[in-house]
Structures are given as structure tokens and as C-alpha cells.
């Protein structure tokens, strides 16, 4: 059998009552590699590390970053490219884009990095974009790995613009924030594309692990240009699409034409389990079995020289007289939905805080805590409830609590967020 990607779906309810109103069905879509040989040729990686070396990085943080960079030098193969840019008040290219052939030389350059000065990110990003475009690669994965611990002042707009330009040219961004001071709105805006993401590092001790994990992820990319298409039966609608694994993120959908929704899903590192949650509106239907949605996943497997592949799945729904229908919902679908709802609630709460609606924000956080408790994320639920209490008492939230909740609910933190409960 030819290698490919398989789609599997679970519906919140597979039988619906034959009522005369629209009904909502949640679909958990899991995609998995099928028949892809484990020795499929790795795609070359074109990696640029962008390191904040402002004075606040001095000490353990910078030392950990250097250790991590050295580890990456060892992990890369001779087909890969590495570059390294540092920034404080200005930016410089420490390692110009090159194949890691002279590893001791590269490590010597890394050990020379010193912390001093302020934080000006945009010039660092501009140099990173320049370095990632030097290598001429027919195929491969290009990535900027940005690490910062502080706020950049006055050049936020430029940072976002450069990130967009990079993403538009197929260069993804992993933005890592360490400590409590960095600007999560900026990093999130910069990485708000399907091929990018932001992660929160709570302590310097995690840096090496997170850096090396990211390189492993990028090395395991085997499918690219994933696109999901959903054709819904007349009268129906795709209300939303969210990624739930490996981390929670809303996926923008476009109604390309009547009853056809499409969405870009970016690259797929094979180490990541991929799952999505769809909300589908079902029109009133007579008793019987009906096709509801036709899902098509388009993708390329450049390592196997298979371009423009397709996987299909038709979701069917049974409609029965309402007296025969119970309201049981699938437990796995419910679990992921519960976590997604918690994520949405906390996101809404921060907007409320911005707008000064403290009571509303507190309510949302409390409800997010309830959802997390029920989803089995006890530690995170406590953090959320502490923050809700702080908010209702003082009208303020803590920068650290907010970051923990934002990245914890998405599953983007070491520790609490990453432990996936299987149901």
C-alpha cells in the first residue's frame, strides 16, 4: 500500500433525533501516517536560532541557551543548515547560514556570546530572515527559533511584519518566551500562522529540552502543505475548526464557495499526534442515514516524492425518531471539547480584562477552572481559580499566572499542559 495519511473521525453523537430544528454535532478528526516507511528520507532542515542577549539573559539563562545551541549543532546532519543571530540594542550574525561541517568552530562561536544591553528584536528577526534565505534548498523545512525574555520597545510592528514576510516564504517561527516579562501579545501575533507557534518556558532548566525537542519535531516533518477541505450537505454548515492536538489553536477557515470550507494546516512533524475538532450544523433531516460532511486532506510527502496526495472521509449521520434517541455523548469528544472550551473561556477573560469588564472576566475564569477540573487538569484548574480570585479581589491579574493559563490551556507548556490524559 502506498504511504499516506489516514483520517479517522468520532462524532459527539452518531444518532440524532428527527426534530425540525438544526442540530449541532462535534467531530473529532484524527489524522495518522499510514505505511510511511520509518526510513523515509529526512527533509533537510534550515534552522536559524535568534537569541536575545540583553543583560537580563545573563547567568543561567544564557548558559542554558549556549548548551542548547551546542546540542543542536550535534543533532544536525550534514544536509542541514544552521545560522545563529543574537540581538540586544543591535543585532549580529554570529553563525552565517552553513552546513554544520566544522562543529568545533561553530561551538567556539557560540561560546563567545555575552549578555549585555537592551532588547531590540526586529533587527534580529530581519537578520534571521536574511540568513534563512541564503541556502538554496529544493525541498526542506525552514525555521526560525526565537528566544527572548523581555519586551522590545518601539519596533513591535516591524517584528510582526518580518515574521509575516518569513511565513509567506515558507519560513515558520517558533517563538519561545522565558520568565514573566516578555510580551506574549507580540510573540503570539508574530506566530499567528499555521506554520508557527509560541511556547512558554518557565525556568532556564527547560531550555535545552525545549530547543532539542523543537529540532526533533522539525526533523520529523514528513508531510507539507496540508490543506483540509470540508464539503457540507445542503442546509448544513461548518461552524468552527480548532486544532486540539498536539496543542490547541483555532484554525482559520474560509468558505471558498457555497457549502465548501477550506483551511491550511501547515507542515506535519510526524512526532506530533494531530487531532482537530469541528463544529458542524446539521439541517433538519428525516429518519434514515445521511451523508453529512465529506472531508478531504490534501498534502505532499516530499521525502517520498509524492506530491498532491489526498485522503478522504465521508461522515455519515443517522437520524431516528426522537423517542428512540438518548443524549449520551462520546467521552473522547467531550474531553477535547471541554479543554477547548476552557481555552476559549480564558481567552475571552483576557479580552474582558483589557476592556475593564472585571466581573465578566472573573466569571469566565471560574468557568474555565470548572471545565479544566472536569477534564482532569487539576493543577491548571487551581492556577486558573487562584487567578480568578486575585482578579475579583484586586481587579488585576499576575503576568506569570496569565502566561501559565494561556499556554497551559493550549497544552503548550512543559509539565501540566503537556500531560495528555487519554480517555
Amino acid at each position, binding site marked *: 500500500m502506498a504511504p499516506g495519511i489516514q483520517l479517522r473521525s468520532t462524532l459527539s453523537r452518531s444518532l440524532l433525533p428527527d426534530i425540525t430544528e438544526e442540530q449541532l454535532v462535534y467531530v473529532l478528526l484524527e489524522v495518522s501516517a499510514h505505511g510511511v516507511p520509518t526510513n523515509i528520507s529526512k527533509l533537510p532542515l534550515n534552522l536559524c536560532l535568534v537569541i536575545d542577549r540583553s543583560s537580563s539573559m545573563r547567568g543561567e539563562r544564557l548558559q542554558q541557551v549556549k548548551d542548547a545551541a551546542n546540542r543542536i549543532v550535534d543533532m544536525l546532519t550534514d544536509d542541514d543548515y544552521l545560522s545563529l543571530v543574537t540581538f540586544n540594542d543591535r543585532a549580529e550574525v554570529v553563525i552565517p547560514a552553513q552546513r554544520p561541517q566544522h562543529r568545533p568552530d561553530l561551538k567556539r562561536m557560540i561560546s563567545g556570546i555575552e549578555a549585555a544591553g537592551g532588547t531590540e528584536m526586529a533587527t534580529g528577526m530581519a537578520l534571521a530572515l536574511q540568513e534563512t534565505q541564503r541556502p538554496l534548498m529544493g525541498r526542506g523545512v525552514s525555521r526560525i527559533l526565537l528566544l527572548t525574555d523581555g519586551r522590545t520597545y518601539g519596533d513591535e510592528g516591524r517584528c510582526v511584519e518580518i515574521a509575516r514576510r518569513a511565513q509567506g516564504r515558507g519560513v515558520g517561527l517558533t517563538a519561545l518566551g522565558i520568565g514573566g516579562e516578555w510580551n506574549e501579545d507580540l510573540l503570539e501575533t508574530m506566530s499567528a500562522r499555521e506554520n508557527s507557534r509560541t511556547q512558554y518556558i518557565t525556568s532556564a532548566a527547560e531550555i535545552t529540552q525545549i530547543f532539542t525537542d523543537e529540532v526533533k519535531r522539525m526533523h520529523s516533518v514528513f508531510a507539507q502543505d496540508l490543506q483540509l477541505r470540508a464539503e457540507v450537505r445542503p442546509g448544513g454548515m461548518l461552524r468552527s475548526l480548532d486544532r486540539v492536538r498536539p496543542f490547541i489553536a483555532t484554525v482559520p477557515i474560509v468558505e471558498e464557495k457555497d457549502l465548501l470550507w477550506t483551511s491550511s494546516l501547515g507542515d506535519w512533524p510526524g512526532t506530533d499526534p494531530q487531532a482537530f475538532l469541528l463544529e458542524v*450544523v446539521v439541517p433538519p433531516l428525516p429518519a434514515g442515514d445521511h451523508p453529512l460532511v465529506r472531508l478531504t486532506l490534501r498534502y505532499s510527502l516530499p521525502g517520498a516524492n509524492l506530491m498532491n496526495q489526498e485522503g478522504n472521509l465521508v461522515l455519515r449521520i443517522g437520524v431516528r425518531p426522537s423517542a428512540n434517541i438518548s443524549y449520551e455523548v462520546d467521552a473522547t469528544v467531550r474531553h477535547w471539547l471541554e479543554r477547548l472550551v476552557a481555552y476559549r473561556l480564558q481567552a475571552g477573560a483576557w479580552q474582558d480584562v483589557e476592556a475593564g469588564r472585571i466581573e465578566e472576566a472573573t466569571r469566565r475564569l471560574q468557568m474555565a477552572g470548572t471545565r479544566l477540573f472536569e477534564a482532569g487538569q487539576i493543577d491548571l484548574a487551581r492556577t486558573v481559580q487562584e487567578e480568578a480570585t486575585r482578579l475579583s479581589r484586586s481587579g488585576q491579574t499576575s503576568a506569570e499566572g496569565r502566561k501559565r493559563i494561556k499556554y497551559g490551556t493550549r497544552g503548550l507548556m512543559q509539565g501540566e499542559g503537556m500531560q495528555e490524559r487519554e480517555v
Partner: protein
Amino acid sequence: MIRCRNCQANQMNGAIFCSECGESLLNVRPARETTASLNQQSSDMPVVVEDVPEETTPAPLLALNTISLVVINSGRRINLEAGEELLVGRKDNQRGIFPDVDLGLDGGYDAGVSRRHAIITPDHGAYLLEDLSSANGTFINGRRIAPQSPTPIQHGDELRFGTLILRFELN
């Protein structure tokens, strides 16, 4: 539609969590809303239900287009405005269910009346009774009616919700 018991937002049937406030909707049974009960959302008070004990105050002179439901075992007469859909059930403040005819006052809980039990709809001068997939069923003159299929009712018919018996009267 179902209504969130926490924030009263209307949600689509099949929704598992409220899209407004995140409350679980799993135990909220879907049922059709009456227009009357929708209006009550703003006032938060049950309207229409008028509690007039038969023996003390005889039924006032009613306009032609009113209907009454008489609870047989208590004699309570419930006079209702005609012309609108009327929800029969039990009031539940927590879940935001305010039926036009609240049989909770007549031992409805023990009699097996569902919160949203049935709906009475005017139909060109006549009336239809529809069971909303209630747990213990709706009966006309002792005959159980199929859920979600509106069935005509006449003046004098005996209506049974669970085990609670009422007489339907056209005035």
C-alpha cells in the same frame, strides 16, 4: 433550541457546552420554546398563569378566545390567553425553565410531569397538544400520544401529564 441554565443563552440542540458562558448543557433536555416563555426571559417571572380557586371566586366572564385547564384533583382552574403556544411543565429557576402552565404547584414532580412536558398550540381556532418527549408521557382521554406529533384536542377532553389529570376547556 435549548437554553443554558447558567446564562439563559439560547443554544443549538446538540450543543455540549454553552458557547456564551461555557456551562455544561449535557443535562438540559432540548424542547421547543414557546413564544410566551421567550418573552418571560426579560421579566424572569412566569406570566399568563392565573391562579383562581374555583370555589371562592367563580370564573370571571371571559373573552371568547380563552382556554382553561382544570386540575382535577385540586380543582385549580388555570385560565390562559389563547392565540399563543403554551408550554406545560414544571418551573425550574436554575435551568431557566418557566412554563406557561406550571404544574409544579399541583404536585407535578410526584406525578411525573417533566420540566418541559408538552405544548399546546392554537391551530385555526382549534388546539393541538404535542408531547415534548416527556419522561412519563402525555395522554388524551386515556390514550397516549406519540411524542413530537401534534394531536388535536377538544373542549372537555381529559389530558393526562404523567399521572396528573387536567380537563381542557374552551371558553
